[in-house]
């Protein structure tokens, strides 16, 4: 049953992904931007322009280009596991994405952890005493945090903690420019440092991640508080809570049982948020020069680097899909009511 469910979801997701990538492929070619001019410059001779155009493959018909990209016309395409080559660096897009992705994942994972540590208890607290100060306070804080421009706060944090107080490192990336990065095994700087036997690198990576994670966690705590509060409040309004109190069960037990019931739907929502944030960490990565997939996307888009753009969209969407599938499986495992 579980197997059939997974296969069905992967199949549906695969189709969605396919449609999506074709849509992006066509869309960027139909928009007026001219990547050729971007590369050869505006004063190029017609011959240079034509040569460049041919190099980029843009002189061929769109169906042919699509076929090449997918790998159905032979050669180096999606079916062969290749995402093409970046028009800016010439490197394989797949390799560049593979380098950039873990950076974002590292940022998001730590941010989510921190946001949950802050947000879940606040959400629960707000739900447990309706009408109280905690209720109003968490509601307002959640609304506020969720409406903030993260790039603005990032800059302000840099100003306060780096420029004024000097306790945080500057926005120079994941490590000090003077440090030699360890061999990338997981891509997570914090873990790779330990794996390479250089705990100092890990410590430094943590320091450099502190402001980005703080900023991102602050923003994320908004929706997390809102969702946990809502689920918890719904659970507390359920009849089984009323009934448990009527049976004289201790309040702590009652609250825990409500949390138990609210847990699965909350996990699901948080997971969905994670999938959503893959493309949403762009601005923080940009401010702190972390080099994650969001920053890669910005660079590629502004440079009109079509293969890179396609690669980024494809990878982000694919990973989101897998995250959603994992969440659903987790939900089914946690909640005996969820039939697959």
């Amino acid at each position: 049953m579980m197997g059939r469910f997974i296969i069905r979801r992967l199949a549906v997701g695969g189709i969605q992904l396919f449609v999506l990538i074709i849509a992006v492929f066509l869309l960027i070619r139909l928009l007026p931007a001219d990547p050729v001019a971007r590369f050869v410059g505006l004063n190029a001779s017609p011959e240079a322009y034509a040569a460049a155009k041919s190099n980029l493959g843009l002189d061929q018909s769109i169906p042919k280009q699509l076929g090449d990209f997918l790998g159905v016309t032979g050669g180096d395409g999606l079916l062969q596991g290749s995402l093409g080559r970046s028009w800016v660096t010439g490197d394989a897009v797949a390799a560049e994405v593979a380098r950039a992705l873990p950076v974002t994942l590292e940022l998001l994972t730590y941010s989510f952890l921190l946001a949950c540590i802050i947000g879940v208890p606040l959400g629960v607290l707000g739900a447990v005493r309706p009408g109280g100060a905690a209720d109003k306070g968490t509601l307002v804080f959640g609304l506020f945090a969720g409406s903030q421009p993260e790039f603005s706060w990032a800059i302000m944090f840099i100003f306060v903690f780096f420029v004024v107080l000097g306790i945080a490192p500057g926005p120079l990336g994941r490590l000090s420019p003077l440090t030699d990065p360890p061999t990338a095994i997981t891509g997570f700087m914090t873990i790779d440092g330990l794996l390479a036997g250089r705990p100092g690198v890990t410590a430094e990576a943590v320091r450099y991640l502190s402001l980005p994670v703080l900023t991102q966690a602050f923003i994320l705590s908004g929706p997390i508080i809102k969702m946990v509060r809502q689920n918890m409040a719904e659970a507390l309004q359920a009849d089984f809570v009323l009934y448990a109190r009527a049976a004289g069960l201790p309040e702590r037990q009652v609250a825990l049982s409500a949390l138990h019931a609210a847990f699965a739907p909350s996990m699901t929502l948080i997971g969905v948020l994670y999938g959503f944030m893959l493309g949403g960490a762009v601005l923080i990565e940009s401010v702190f020069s972390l080099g994650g997939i969001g920053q890669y996307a910005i660079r590629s888009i502004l440079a009109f680097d079509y293969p890179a753009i396609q690669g980024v969209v494809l990878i982000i969407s694919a990973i989101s899909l897998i995250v959603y599938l994992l969440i659903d499986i987790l939900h089914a495992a946690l909640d005996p009511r969820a039939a697959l």
Partner: protein
Amino acid sequence: MSVAVHDAPAAGDGLLKIGAIIVGLMTFLAIFGPVIAPYDPTAATDTVSTPPPPLIDWPRLFIAQFDPEIPAPHWFGVDAAGLDVFSRTISAPRTDLLIALTATAFSFVIGVTLGALAGFFRHWSTELLMRASDILQSFPVFISAMILVALAGRSGVNIVLAMTLLYSPIFIRLTRAEVMSLRNRGFVEAARATGVSERNIVFRYVLPNALGPAAAQASVTIGFAILLTAGLSFVGAGVRPPTPEWGLMIANGASQIVLGDWWPSLFPGAAISITVFGFASLGHALERRYGR
């Protein structure tokens, strides 16, 4: 009795008031901002990189303003290009809010119409619409907006179009769900049993009741649209300089932060902060009142 998620009633009303005040203020600035601004937001003044005057001086400076001979103070300071931060900050709503409101209005109209149709009629075309809407919703929002705007040309119009495309699915989905649940409500059926025509059922019974949640969502969406516009401009894929726009201002200010010049970034940042919070609060209060 249907029980919605509780909020302390006092908090709910408080949020409504705060939201309304903030939205009102920003709308006022959107209309009159550039008019009341003391300096031309796109022209350099005679100083450069000047911090704002200390707060204690403000009352004195304000009173001194009544003498037309005295030049206006730079309330929020001057940035590295010599532009008055205050004037730019209060002129920016005209750009940011206009874009956000227009985009949301378009998505609302398109989304509600299509959503209502999809809610009423089960047809292969509405099924297709929902599939397309799903796929559209699975696009990573910021990146897709960047692609659309950067490749179509950086302009306010393109930002509006991109956001309309990306935000319509939310309204489609929301309206469809509302309409589907309302169709089966007793009073709708009772109307049908009384002989009310289907057309009247849609327009007089269902839609008025379905628009509530959509309107609340609209307020929230305007807030997100402002964030998106500012974010796009910040990375260089949005509005073009020298249009006063909060995101652009923060981007300019970012390079000056390490020099200790905090004012070019703080004020536009705070403005976005407050504005989006205002829309979010208003949306929340509306949802409590008019949501199901």
